Each structure stands twice: as structure tokens, then as C-alpha cells.
């Protein structure tokens, strides 16, 4: 419990630092956002009025705390381009991106652990080459190309779905999740290959340890040794890797949404980047960063559940 409390403190401090960095990053940008919103022809009065409206006339540290307290309450500021609250713009889109992210993550975990164990049980030299080659090829395919291939094979050749024919979870959860299976798999496949590689090498190095010999000396069957002894030890580094994956998967979803025309935050993020609509980008970046920090927190908790040695430190 003490460990969890300590990690929770770290979590809050990290979130605070991340928010500060995200805020400051968008303060160093040269140029006045009001020029961009009103055009260069606007009068000085109009610009001052707009600045006051957006709160840009106050000192940086006050603006930061106002922005932060707004953020905590779910008020992400006002879009420069559309003059509407960013939270309204994100409300429909963010859940979709998160559903896709969580689904891809679930696929990654569900597929990679059994495959990793299978690959880790194969110790012959021939199998080593075969597994490594398959792994390398799978890792080399960018997720968005897997997505395109999936569209081509399942959309065009077999006509199992219509790319772009997305159904929101508000209408039908089943149809929504069904549509997301292929996008989620596209994101997951390269991650699965990486995780399998990681788990395999972890299993192979654990299998040579003394405690495995001890387990054998007690009459354990090979499978029991793997399940009861090796796996828990081998999973320790994989947990860290999966936490990193969760972050990468979130950015992966942003790309895949474009391939499958899923109305998540992707399009909004891209148009905001092109239109230099900073409050929107800022909000999305902070949300993604918060997600990453929270995933790492969960990984830390899992870590100490699996590895008793951590609790001492």
C-alpha cells in the first residue's frame, strides 16, 4: 500500500510537470494568435479585445494556473479557429480514439503472451531462425500499411466491410466494436511481433537460471515449469515494454483512424496542427500524456505485484 501511495505521488508530480511543459511549449511560439484569428488587417482595439476574451493579456503564471484548474474541471480552453470550447470539439471524438486504443492494447496482450510462450518454448536452432525471420518481417510492416492491406483484402476483395462505414458506439456498440476489429488488429500486429520477440528472449534467458533446474529436480513437468516458474519471472521486463506499447498504440490509433476513416481525434488533431489551433493541440497532447503517465502508473503497480523484490526499494 505504501508503495502504491508513493507511486501515486510520483504520478501527480509527473502530471503536473507534463502539464507545465505542454503549456510552456505553446508559449514560446513566435507571433500573436490574434493576428492569425483576425488577420493582419484587424485594428489594435479589436485584437486587444480578443486577447482579453482569450485571457492572453494576463501574466504567464496566472494563465497557467487558470488553464490547469480549467483542465482539471474539463474546460480545455477555446479553439482559436472555431471559437468554441475545445472540450465540446473533443467530446464525441475522444471516446472513439480511446476505444480503439484499448482494443488494440487488449489484442496486443492477448495475442503476444501465448505466442511469446510458444516461441519461447522452441529452442532448436532451426526454429530460432524461423521465428526470428517471421518476427522481423512482421515488425517491419508499418501499422498503416497493414491497415491498407486489410482494407484491400477484407474491404475490396472479400467485401466483408465497407471502409469508412463507421458506426458510432452511441448507435450500436456491437457494430462499432465490430468495425474497430481490423483497425485494432492493424495497430496490434507489429506490436505483437515486438512483444513476442521480447518475451521470447526473456523466457530463453530465464530458462537457463538455476531455479528452473530446482523446479525440474522436484519432478515438475516442463509445462508446469514454464507456467509456474519461468513465466512470472519472464513477464517482468515485458510489463515495462507493454506500458511503452500503450503509449505507442495511442499514436498508432491516430494514424490508423486516417486509414479506416474513423471519426476519432485524428482529423481534428491534423487540421489543428495545420491551422495552428494551439489550444486544441495542447489539449490533445496533455490528454495523451496523461494517458501515458497513468498507464505507467498501472504498470508500476503490476510490477510490484509480480516482483516482490521491488517492494523493498
Amino acid at each position: 500500500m505504501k508503495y502504491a501511495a508513493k507511486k501515486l505521488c510520483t504520478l501527480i508530480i509527473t502530471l503536473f510537470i507534463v502539464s507545465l511543459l505542454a503549456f510552456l511549449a505553446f508559449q514560446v511560439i513566435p507571433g500573436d494568435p490574434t493576428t492569425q484569428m483576425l488577420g493582419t488587417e484587424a485594428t489594435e482595439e479589436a485584437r486587444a479585445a480578443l486577447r482579453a476574451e482569450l485571457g492572453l493579456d494576463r501574466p504567464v503564471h496566472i494563465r497557467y494556473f487558470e488553464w490547469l484548474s480549467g483542465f482539471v474541471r474539463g474546460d480545455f480552453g477555446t479553439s482559436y479557429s472555431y471559437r468554441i470550447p475545445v472540450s465540446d470539439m473533443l467530446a464525441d471524438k475522444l471516446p472513439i480514439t480511446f476505444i480503439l486504443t484499448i482494443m488494440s492494447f487488449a489484442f496486443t496482450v492477448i495475442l503476444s503472451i501465448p505466442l511469446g510462450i510458444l516461441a519461447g518454448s522452441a529452442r532448436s536452432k532451426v526454429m530460432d531462425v524461423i521465428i526470428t525471420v517471421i518476427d522481423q518481417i512482421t515488425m517491419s510492416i508499418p501499422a498503416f500499411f497493414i491497415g491498407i492491406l486489410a482494407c484491400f483484402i477484407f474491404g475490396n476483395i472479400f467485401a466483408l466491410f465497407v471502409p469508412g462505414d463507421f458506426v458510432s458506439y452511441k448507435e450500436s456498440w456491437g457494430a462499432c466494436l465490430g468495425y474497430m476489429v481490423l483497425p485494432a488488429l492493424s495497430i496490434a500486429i507489429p506490436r505483437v511481433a515486438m512483444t513476442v520477440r521480447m518475451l521470447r528472449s526473456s523466457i530463453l534467458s530465464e530458462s537457463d537460471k538455476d531455479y528452473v533446474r530446482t523446479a525440474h529436480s522436484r519432478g515438475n513437468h516442463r509445462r508446469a515449469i514454464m507456467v509456474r516458474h519461468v513465466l512470472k519471472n519472464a513477464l517482468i521486463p515485458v510489463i515495462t515494454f507493454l506500458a511503452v506499447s500503450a503509449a505507442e498504440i495511442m499514436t498508432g490509433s491516430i494514424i490508423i483512424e486516417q486509414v479506416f476513416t474513423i471519426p476519432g481525434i485524428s482529423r481534428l488533431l491534423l487540421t489543428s496542427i495545420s491551422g495552428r489551433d494551439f489550444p486544441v493541440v495542447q489539449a490533445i497532447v496533455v490528454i495523451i500524456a496523461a494517458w501515458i503517465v497513468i498507464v505507467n502508473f498501472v504498470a508500476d503497480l503490476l510490477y510490484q505485484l509480480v516482483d516482490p523484490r521491488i517492494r523493498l526499494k
Partner: protein
Amino acid sequence: MKKKGNLFLYIGGTISGLMTALIILGFFWTPYSPTALDSSAKFQPPSAAHIMGTDNFGRDIFSRVLDGAGDTFIIALCVVAIGCVFGVLIGSICGYIGGVPDLILTRVCDSITAFPSFLLALVIVTILGKSTANIVLALGILFIPSFARTVRGEFARCRELNYIKSARLTGAGKFRIMFVHILPNTFSVLFTAVTIGFNNAVLSEASMSFLGIGIQPPFASLGSMLSDSQAYLHRAPWYALCTGAVIILLILGFSLLSEGLQRMNKGD
């Protein structure tokens, strides 16, 4: 075991060697001009005249792929070069001198690597604006930590070796020890880091260009071509397939190469 490690090295070396040769060829000569429009030859499937077919404007896809791969390749090289040079500088100082600068720089690098490089590149591009130079800069900065970390580890290890200690006793200067005595020892590890970094650069660049925030026209990139090709998936599947295959081969070659190098370094 040794022979097998080299198997990956051979195959990876062959693929990346061929790709590099083709790309270099593409700088000087392509079968057609990558931008030549030909309305009489739209959406032609692969044939002897157009080995990868033609696109929606009748442009030769093979020529465009060579051209795009060339841009991708150069961007990846620049990104790796930035990451490598600054990474080596920072890593060697941290690893050899240690102390407070080491602590600070390691923390900074750790916090940068905790976030997906893609996301940070997006932020940098948002702030600096979309341009090819900014992409290179953004990705280059993001690649520094991983190189710095690798080099730092090697320097910290080498610092304690006896021959370095004896070099110090003979009165060799800090920088001479760092760059004449230690640096060459890190080359094998560094080379692996370069191949992995190159792959990540290709992938990041392709992803960003795919989203339209990477290389801007008139430059072509494999990522933006793939994005274009998606609209014609039904009429001209070879467009997407050929472009994708080139990206895969580019990445696969270098990742097999790094696998082979890693196995060779481990000594199996």
C-alpha cells in the same frame, strides 16, 4: 552459432545494399520522369513498360517510388546523423565525466524517451510549422536521447577498463581519451544503434508524411504516396502494394542487419 548470426547479416546486408543502390540510381536516373503526366496511361497495371504500373495521373509508379524512397532515405540519414552526432557528444560527456551533468542529462533523456517520439514530433511541427527541414529537426532532436543513452553506457563501461586507466596515467588529455581511446570501442554498439535508428526514422517520417504533416510538396515521400494510393485501392491496388512493399523492404533490410550485428556482438 556464428555462422547463423551472419546469415541475418548477409540477408539484411543484401536487401539494404540493393535498396541503397536503387535509391542512389534513382538520384541520377529513373525510367520516366517521376512527375511526367500521361493521360493516355492512367491506372496501368504492372507491365514491362511500367514495372510497378502507373497512378491516377499516368505517372510511372516505379520512378515515383525511387524518387520518394530517395527523399525518405535522405531525411532518415539526416535524422540519424543529427541524433548520432549530438547523442555521441552528450553520451560521451555524461558517461566519461559523470556527476551532476550526467544526472541532469540522463533525467532529461529519460523523460523524452518516455513519450512516443511521434507525438513529440507533432508538437514540434505544430510549433515550428510544417516543412521538410522542421521534420528533420524534430525527428533529429527526438533521436538524440536513444543514441546518448547507448553511448553513455559504453563510455561508463570503458572508463573503468585498465587500458583507459593506463592511458590516463601516461597523461593523455580528457578529450584525447574520450575520442581517440574510447570512441572507437563504441563503434560496434553504435552501428547497431544507427541501423535501429534509421528504421525508426523511416517509419516516423513515413507515418508523418502519411498524415500529411511530413514532407511537403513538391517533395514526394513513400508515406505521402501511400496516403494518395489509398484513394485508388480499388482501381489500382498495385499502387499501394508496391509503395508499401518498398517501405517494408527498406525497414526489413536494416532490421535484419541490426539483428545480425547484435548476434555477432553477443558472440553467438
